[in-house]
């Protein structure tokens, strides 16, 4: 059937029409081969604009539509829906971007108009060769896997379970609760962390829709959004062999948390060498034990008179390769300084800092309060800690005084930062996730996709994505649950229609395409020695078709003849 193309030039108010003579573009398009009708309109995306296209499809029997407007990222879906409603396959639509790629980046009306005509003519040439594609849905197994039983994992599991779906929590340790189980009090409200955590843990453990698998790890993940098959290994005791079980889930939430920076990597602070140089977490432990034992001082009997806190240990430190800020240490230090002040009303307490990052709700007020409690904040990053007699000395440059200072201490507390887990690579490769520059798992988009990933059906929660406090972790966990609840609630998900097509007669099974594919959509069929493409995993990026030396793979909707037609019409 011959192509009958309708061309629609959008003014986008004045966004396009200001720089491009839209009427001239519409007129020129009228003379192109296979063009039945060509019109311009103030806003093609508006209801009357879409109606114009639909009427022409019905009345003139158009079988291809070219809309010359903004980027396809804006309205391709809008116009696909519009042509579909009028009875055309949605992939018979071609967008010609004459806004971002023309009117917005050029000033001269004449040459911009000429360029717009070129863009439109190449879109028409391509449109004539477009093939119909099928829209496909996959079914969703109504269950989710949550990797990690810290507060992020537990909260995500609870939301999923509360919405009526099964949630499996896989936790490496013997107990759930993660790092939060090691904290005494929260900042800035000084709530007892363990009471709050216990509520969360009890709710999760008692929930009929939640299975908590402790002493367990994910061994293998197979499949794709909607139907993942997960091998989980469990080892209830060291003496027993690991048993494996297979879980079928529709979505996966990664909540694997963080590691604490190893303070011995900063030998100048003497951690490990001096027993009274401890980490913040070790101080929390002492505070917790003292609280539990009702009164026994966590800091010895009167021996401690001077306490020094050092912030940014392992954070904001290029020499260690940790350029980033760990986001929680400023406030946990302020809180610990306050708790020490309560224990030791007469102690001298000094905090060395670079910037105080008290950015959350109530944080600044708490920081102010701690300073009013005679905690001395000194701006400077200590260069070393050494021993003088039986006391420690922290040596630093006080950058506000502009001179070196030495502060004696009986106890030095290092605010160690948060670093990516040592097994982040392992989990990354299991789920095909990449990592950002700082080593944490990478989200889909730093602004608008903070919990989604490039792998459909896999979401991030908590500190595996980057350091964050309890509040932000809970919010993110619920956010990840929301992303997972979308496919789970609907029961099916639409997958990409623009995928690769592989011709087994041309394929030599060399595997170059599989190396190029970041979605692991290509695998070797060993029996036939040809590659096979998984049409659900494929995202239609086209990397495989450019890698294939024998031209055995083409990307549907971007076939060589379609692309060459586009190119030929402008050269």
């Amino acid at each position, binding site marked *: 059937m011959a192509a009958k193309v309708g061309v629609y030039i959008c003014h986008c*108010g*004045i966004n396009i029409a200001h720089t491009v003579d839209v009427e001239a573009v519409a007129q020129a398009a009228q003379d192109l081969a296979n063009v039945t009708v060509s019109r311009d309109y*103030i*806003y093609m995306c*508006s209801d*009357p604009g879409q109606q114009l296209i639909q009427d022409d499809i019905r009345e003139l029997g158009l079988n291809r539509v070219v809309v010359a407007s903004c980027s396809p*990222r*804006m309205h391709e*879906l*809008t116009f696909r*829906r519009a042509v579909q409603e009028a009875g055309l396959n949605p992939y018979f639509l071609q967008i010609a971007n004459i806004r*971002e790629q023309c009117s917005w980046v050029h000033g001269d009306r004449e040459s911009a108009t000429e360029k717009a005509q070129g863009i439109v003519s190449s879109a028409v040439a391509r449109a004539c060769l477009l093939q119909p594609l099928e829209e496909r849905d996959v079914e969703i197994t109504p269950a989710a896997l949550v990797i990690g039983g810290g*507060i992020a994992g537990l909260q995500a599991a609870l939301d999923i379970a*509360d*919405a*009526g779906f099964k949630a499996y929590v896989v936790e490496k340790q013997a107990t759930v609760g993660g790092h939060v189980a090691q904290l005494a009090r*929260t900042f800035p*409200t000084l709530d007892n962390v363990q009471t*709050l955590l216990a*509520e969360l843990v009890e709710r999760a453990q008692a929930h009929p829709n939640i299975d908590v698998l402790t002493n367990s790890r994910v061994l293998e993940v197979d499949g794709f959004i909607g139907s993942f098959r997960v091998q989980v290994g469990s080892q209830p005791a060291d003496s027993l062999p690991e048993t494996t079980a297979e879980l079928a889930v529709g979505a996966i939430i990664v909540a694997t948390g963080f590691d604490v920076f190893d303070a011995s990597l900063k030998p100048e602070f003497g951690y490990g060498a001096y027993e009274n140089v401890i980490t913040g977490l070790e101080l929390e432990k002492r505070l917790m034990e003292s609280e539990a034992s009702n009164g026994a001082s966590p800091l010895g009997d009167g021996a401690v008179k001077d306490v020094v806190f050092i912030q940014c240990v392992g954070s*904001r430190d290029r020499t260690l390769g940790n*350029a*980033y*800020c760990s*986001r929680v240490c400023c406030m946990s230090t302020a809180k610990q300084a306050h708790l020490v002040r309560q224990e030791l009303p007469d102690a001298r307490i000094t905090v060395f800092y670079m*910037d*105080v*990052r*008290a*950015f*959350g*709700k*109530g*944080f*600044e*007020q708490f920081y102010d309060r701690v300073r009013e409690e005679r905690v001395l904040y000194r701006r400077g990053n200590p260069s070393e800690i050494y021993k003088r007699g039986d006391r420690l000395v922290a040596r630093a440059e006080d950058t*506000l*005084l502009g001179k070196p200072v030495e502060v004696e201490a009986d106890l030095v507390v290092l605010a160690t930062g948060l670093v990516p887990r040592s097994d982040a690579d392992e989990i990354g490769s299991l789920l095909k996730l990449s990592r950002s*520059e700082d080593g*944490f798992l990478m989200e889909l*988009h*730093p*602004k*608008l*996709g903070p*919990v989604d990933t490039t792998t459909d059906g896999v979401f991030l929660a908590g500190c595996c994505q*980057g350091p964050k406090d309890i*509040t*932000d972790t*809970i*919010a*993110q*966990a*619920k*956010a990840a649950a*929301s992303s997972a*609840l*979308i496919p789970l*609630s*609907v029961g099916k998900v639409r997958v990409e229609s623009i995928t690769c097509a592989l011709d087994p007669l041309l394929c030599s099974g060399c595997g170059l395409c599989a190396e190029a594919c970041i979605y692991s959509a290509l695998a070797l069929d060993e029996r036939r020695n040809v590659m096979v493409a998984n049409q659900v995993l494929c995202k239609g990026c086209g990397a495989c078709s450019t890698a294939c030396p024998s031209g055995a793979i083409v990307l549907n909707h971007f076939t060589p003849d379609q692309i060459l037609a586009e190119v030929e019409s402008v050269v």
Partner: protein
Amino acid sequence: MGATLVIGAGIAGMQAALDIADAGFKVYLVERDPSIGGRMAQLDETFPTLDCSSCILTPKMVSVGGHPNIELLTYSEVVQLEGDVGDFRVKVRRRPRYIDADKCTACGICAENCRLKGRIDSEFNVGMGKRSAAYVPFPQAVPLKYTIDSERCLMVQRGKCGESPPCRNACPAGAVDFDQQEEIVDLQVDSVIVATGFDPFDPHLKPEYGYGLYDNVITGLQFERLSSASGPTYGEIKLNDREINDVVFIQCVGSRDRNLGNVYCSRVCCMYTAKQAHLVREKLPDARVTVFYMDIRAFGKGFEEFYDRVREERVQYRRGNPAEIHRRGDRLVVRAEDTLLGQPVEVEADLVVLAIGLVPRADTQALAELLGLSSCEDGFFQEAHPKFRPTETDVSGVFLAGCCQGPKDIPDAVAQGKAAAASAIVIMSRSGSALTPGEE
């Protein structure tokens, strides 16, 4: 049928609405302004990745506008809420646009012909551009329908605009309708998400900085419009044709300030200032750029790295909180104590950008009473628990998202929007009321 009311269609409200709608439930999205999009629509590039804000936002706005499960109620306000979780009854007041949205093609002829054309400050351009009484806030508005500003329109205010209103005479679609009346819409919903955002701090309250007195002292939000390719100067950093060689940024304007009663940190200003300093460097390679700060709070992913990069781009960070700005000849002088040098300094400037903070919306108290919520010490809405229940409230079935709970950046607002959506989905799932996809 399960339904949720989302109040406010900025990035947090839109994200919450999309998640709920994508999960198959009905959403009523109420927005006070004529368009959805919120503050993010005004921003130029986002930190630290320098994505163009409207390029990533507007596709989302289109998704919201076209979603079969989302019913948009723009130019509307919630006026009453009764009932309990699972059965809230809501009254929404739809203000008259005086333009029939079904007929309007957004051709703009009404605005062209408006007698007040070019005489009303554009809110979108923060006073740095003008509009008519008949207007769309910005070209990518959703819905793309004109609105007649009832507070400014002569016809609405005085019942008379010349012989007869030129907008009505000129409209080729016959869409202008001064007989439109306010309408009350009744809704029944299972849960409510409050995503009403923030107000920018009013820098007039810091008279020592001369905002309003000196035309080259502007706010960070105005800088965004100045720097934006779609702004009043098409992205050029210029003001009244004055040559700009020295730019000074002042952080913490209206934040961390006990005298003003705003003790809290606004969380985003350090990074938006760093980004703006970078944009100045990009557009004015030879300018001297100085940033006055108290502490640099570069705490998010990629933030510290970005802050390092900006300093390497010859942006001078000076620790100190300027005491005042005064005029010397035709230039401005920023006077501060540099606390690292321990001495007073004066820095001359052709442009001063005030990194204004985020404050609770002026109507927070009224909305709190209407919804039965409380607000916390700093004036933002109070969450159920600051650590473990950041998006819930003391009212069962009412959730918070975004900056109405406290200042936050875009990813944190998005995460909270989704978090609130999860809670709403849980409630609606329990009442077993998911729509099949696409069904209304």
